[in-house]
């Protein structure tokens, strides 16, 4: 009884007196631990790799999807979970707090990634006359704006009704559509346009072929009949998309969804579903991806509006794009507005003063129509309407309108123009009037210059073939080509105007675009490199650097988007490292705040668990041996299984390197000793100051704290394996290698992080390291001041050579960040390193 109590106390205090085990049992226990340790290190590798992929995605402005965030976060979490499991096995069930910390962080990550979709409840239909801005959650952005516009005196909108979010949600749920759609999406490769086209088709068919709930179908037809009674009896409707969840000020979603025109009662259901399905058109999917929207968050509502028999239609920008300050744009042509927004029709353009009495300052009649179908009086009325809408909505508006045979102006749509696009006014520059000039003319869609080989796109087939960074040349700027804008260097179209959808999207992506350029598809030849100066409406032969140099950085279309925010939030729970100093009393499982903390903790403790093995089990063979060496550093070796020569007497406390038979360790050691270390470089006073400042901010880096700085460095070895953790000077480095007879198993990895000195110095050193490593065939990933490098599956002799490179580098780059501020010194070191490494490697041959 007393004995039991005593052992309980000891356990509580963390004192482990384990039963003495036989040599066999110990050996087995050791092998188990070793296996756990190996698995833990593999998991550690995988987790860190996924973390750095997530960080890189956020930094380099590439496009990423929710699927990417989800799958990489899963890789991180699952591997950390494995690390914890393995560590707990190694620690005989201790570290229970790790699981608690893990669950806590994991739940937080889950909550960020899988934000619940709030179901929408309410009416299925709302007459457009009753719709206003407050109903945006039910009717979508476009219909809410239109309903609101219609409530203003002097503004006419067509009669009709909105089919709400509740209705489409019901349709989705009844047909259990979200899981089916997600399943198709999960397997989409967004960079493969052909794949996108196929899957987009698959999802759209799924939606169109699913039945509408019977009651919803009945009521939809009833609504149509009501509309018939209100208007004349052969009314047809336009079924227009009105999506919910779009932030129109930031992202226009221009022309991405389908509008079905001239719909009668027989085709109403089909048209409704077609508009719903267009949420998954290739162009909408690509756009959402590029701008960082989640498809689950976007709900399609549909507006059914009576068709207006249009004699003339057009677009107004209540503040001119690229035109004079104080003016507004009126684009128009005969018939419906479709040709203008699709860019297939030639368009007339009036510039009108924003102030009453709205003088028309410029008339550009490009359309082939006989005469101008728009009277000056009507232009003034349009200007009044535009200004009224701008004042009401509080921002410049992009307004679509039609005029019927009685002369009544109907507003069909009013949406904000994002302000940063307005700022992008064109500055007049020079035109090079020499033989480089290929074409001159057209209208600027988005100013700027871009260069690349010409690629003319006419069909979906061409679209699939479109190479990155080519100049996209098309006849008509159709919204269908939107998926290519993210890859193109510039856009040139034969028709269209700045009012078209594609032009709008090109401005959002900061892609230089030139429209209405006659003969473009005939004069420009596939494959020929050209430079498009969109601002000055010129196309040149070849690449003209002076035009391209003036380019600012293209805006990242994902900036501020929901998907980007999600990644930023997820990363806050994954990457920050709070547990840096293992000697600190705060280095505890319960204090892990991020996934990175957990990996760091597990890794540190696993090394100790391996090392402690001998101590805890009185197992002399497992204990660390001090390596006999002349360097002023402590090197210790732990034999994991067959890393020491059989002659080595396990009683010895010291070991000579000749008694080590771990091939990867020998290679590292050779690299470390290939050239004598010169000692730290002399440092300018400024450099030293920066390091001391950091040292005071992080006590773990204080050179005065001997225990940290002169930490023992451990080689963990077996015949084919070596893991070396080093704290050299101020930084932390780890080399790990497994080089066996099986090629697919072989790998060499190197990680490097931290260090004193300010961020710019650390980054400078790491860039130097990265450059050298890349030069010697490593695959290098950089994230801030952390570096990951690896080579794998190569010839043994090659990999041993790379280990020598690493051995050399960890010794010789020691503390060089002290001189990073001095470019000349830095250059000198760089050359010295490369030269010596090359010499070292060539001695092998």
């Amino acid at each position, binding site marked *: 009884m007393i004995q039991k109590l005593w052992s309980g106390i000891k356990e509580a205090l963390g004192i482990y007196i384990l039963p003495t085990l036989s040599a*066999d049992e110990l050996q*087995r226990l050791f*092998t*188990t631990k070793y*296996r756990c340790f190996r*698995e833990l290190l593999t998991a550690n590798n995988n987790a860190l790799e996924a973390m750095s992929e997530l960080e890189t995605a956020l930094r380099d402005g590439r496009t990423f999807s929710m*699927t990417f965030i*989800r*799958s990489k*976060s*899963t*890789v991180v*979490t*699952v591997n950390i*979970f*494995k690390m914890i*499991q393995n560590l707990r096995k190694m620690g005989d069930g201790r570290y229970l707090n790790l699981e608690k910390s893990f669950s806590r962080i*994991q739940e937080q*990550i*889950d909550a960020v*990634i*899988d934000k619940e979709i709030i179901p929408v409840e309410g009416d299925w239909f709302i007459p457009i006359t009753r719709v206003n801005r407050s109903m945006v959650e039910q009717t979508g952005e476009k219909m809410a704006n239109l309903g609101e516009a219609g409530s203003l005196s002097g503004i006419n909108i067509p009669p009709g009704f909105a089919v709400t979010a509740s209705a489409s949600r019901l349709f989705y749920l009844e047909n259990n559509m979200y899981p089916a759609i*997600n*399943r198709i999406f*999960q*397997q989409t490769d967004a960079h493969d346009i052909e794949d996108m086209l196929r899957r987009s088709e698959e999802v759209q068919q799924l939606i169109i072929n699913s039945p509408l709930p019977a009651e919803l179908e009945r009521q939809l037809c009833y609504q149509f009949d009501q509309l018939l009674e209100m208007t004349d009896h052969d009314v047809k409707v336009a079924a227009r998309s009105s999506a919910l969840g779009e932030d129109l000020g930031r992202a226009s979603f221009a022309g991405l969804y389908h509008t079905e025109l001239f719909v009668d009662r027989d085709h109403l259901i089909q048209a409704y579903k077609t508009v719903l399905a267009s949420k998954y058109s290739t162009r909408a999917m690509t756009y959402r991806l590029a701008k960082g929207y989640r498809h689950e968050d976007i709900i399609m509502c549909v507006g059914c509006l009576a068709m207006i028999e249009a004699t003339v239609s057009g677009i107004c920008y209540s503040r001119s794009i690229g035109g004079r300050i104080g003016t507004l744009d009126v684009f128009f042509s005969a018939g419906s507005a479709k040709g203008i927004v699709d860019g297939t029709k030639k368009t007339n353009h009036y510039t009108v003063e924003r102030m009453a009495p709205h003088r028309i300052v410029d008339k550009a009649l490009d359309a082939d129509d006989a005469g101008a179908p728009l009277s000056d009086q009507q232009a003034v009325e349009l200007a009044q309407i535009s200004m009224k809408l701008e004042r009401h909505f509080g921002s410049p508006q992009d307004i679509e309108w039609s005029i019927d045979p009685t002369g009544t102006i109907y507003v069909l749509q009013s949406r904000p123009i994002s302000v940063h696009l307005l700022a992008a006014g064109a500055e007049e520059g020079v035109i090079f009037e020499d033989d480089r000039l290929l074409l001159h003319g057209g209208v600027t869609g988005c100013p700027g210059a871009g260069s690349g080989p010409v690629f003319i796109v006419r069909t979906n087939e061409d679209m699939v073939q479109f190479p990155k960074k080519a100049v996209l040349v098309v006849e008509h700027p159709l919204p269908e080509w939107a998926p290519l804008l993210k890859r193109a260097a510039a856009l040139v179209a034969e028709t269209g105007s700045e009012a078209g959808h594609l032009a709008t999207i090109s401005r959002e992506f900061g892609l230089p675009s030139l429209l209405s350029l006659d003969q473009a598809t005939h004069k420009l030849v596939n494959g020929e490199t050209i430079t498009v100066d969109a601002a000055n409406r010129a196309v040149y032969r070849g690449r003209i650097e002076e035009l391209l140099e003036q380019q600012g950085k293209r805006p990242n279309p994902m900036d501020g988007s929901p998907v980007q925010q999600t990644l930023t939030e997820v990363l806050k729970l994954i990457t920050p490292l709070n547990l840096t100093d293992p000697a600190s009393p705060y280095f505890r499982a319960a204090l892990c705040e991020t996934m990175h903390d957990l990996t760091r903790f597990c890794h540190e403790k696993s090394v100790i668990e391996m090392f402690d093995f001998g101590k805890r089990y009185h197992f002399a063979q497992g204990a660390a041996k001090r390596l006999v060496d002349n360097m002023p550093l402590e090197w210790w070796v732990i034999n994991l299984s067959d890393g020491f020569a059989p002659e080595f007497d396990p009683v010895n406390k010291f070991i000579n390197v000749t008694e080590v038979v771990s091939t990867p360790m020998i290679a590292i050691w050779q690299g470390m000793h290939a050239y004598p270390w010169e000692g730290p470089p002399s440092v300018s006073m400024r450099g030293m100051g920066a390091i001391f400042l950091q040292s005071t901010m992080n006590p773990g880096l204080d050179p005065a704290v001997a225990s940290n700085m002169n930490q023992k460095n451990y080689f963990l070895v077996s015949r084919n394996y070596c893991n070396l953790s080093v704290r050299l000077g101020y930084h932390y480095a780890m080399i790990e290698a497994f080089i066996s007879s099986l090629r*697919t198993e072989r790998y060499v990895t190197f990680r490097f992080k931290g260090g004193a000195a300010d961020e710019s110095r650390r980054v400078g050193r790491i860039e130097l390291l990265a450059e050298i490593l890349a030069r010697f065939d490593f695959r290098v990933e950089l994230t801030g001041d952390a570096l990951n490098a690896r080579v794998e599956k190569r010839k043994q002799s090659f990999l041993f050579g790379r280990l020598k490179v690493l051995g050399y580098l960890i010794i010789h780059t020691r503390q060089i960040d002290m001189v990073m501020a001095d470019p000349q010194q830095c250059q000198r070191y760089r050359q010295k390193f490369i030269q010596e490494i090359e010499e070292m490697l060539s001695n092998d041959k």
Partner: protein
Amino acid sequence: MARYDVLVVDDEKDFRDIIVKKLEKRDLKCDSAPDGATALEMVKAKKYDVVLLDVKMPGMDGIEALREIKKIEPMVEVVMLTGHASVESGINGIKYGAFDYLMKPMDMDPLMEKLDAAYERKRIQQDKIEMAQIKKDMALPG
């Protein structure tokens, strides 16, 4: 000669057939089952080294099948296939003893790497147990 035995469990026939064909090309001996229940019967009847198991199947789902398989044959290593990436589905498999998980669709190289690693783990475990058994046998008075 086959390197080791694999059982592929997935309700999609096309997927199953393709994977089996590809794995056989890489010198693996490969059977397949369309659902969890069938898989359990097969695991009872024959010793497999590695099971490749879809998480999402009608009837008995992958996690349930995993737990049952581990009861019948604790030594077999299981690699889970998930269609939809989620932290939860990844972790659940590992919790119940799966070796690892893979997301569909997957390329052959990562698949082979996972399967080989799973087999390697199984082999080491088995060797260990066999060694212990041999030692025990040898210790017995002859």
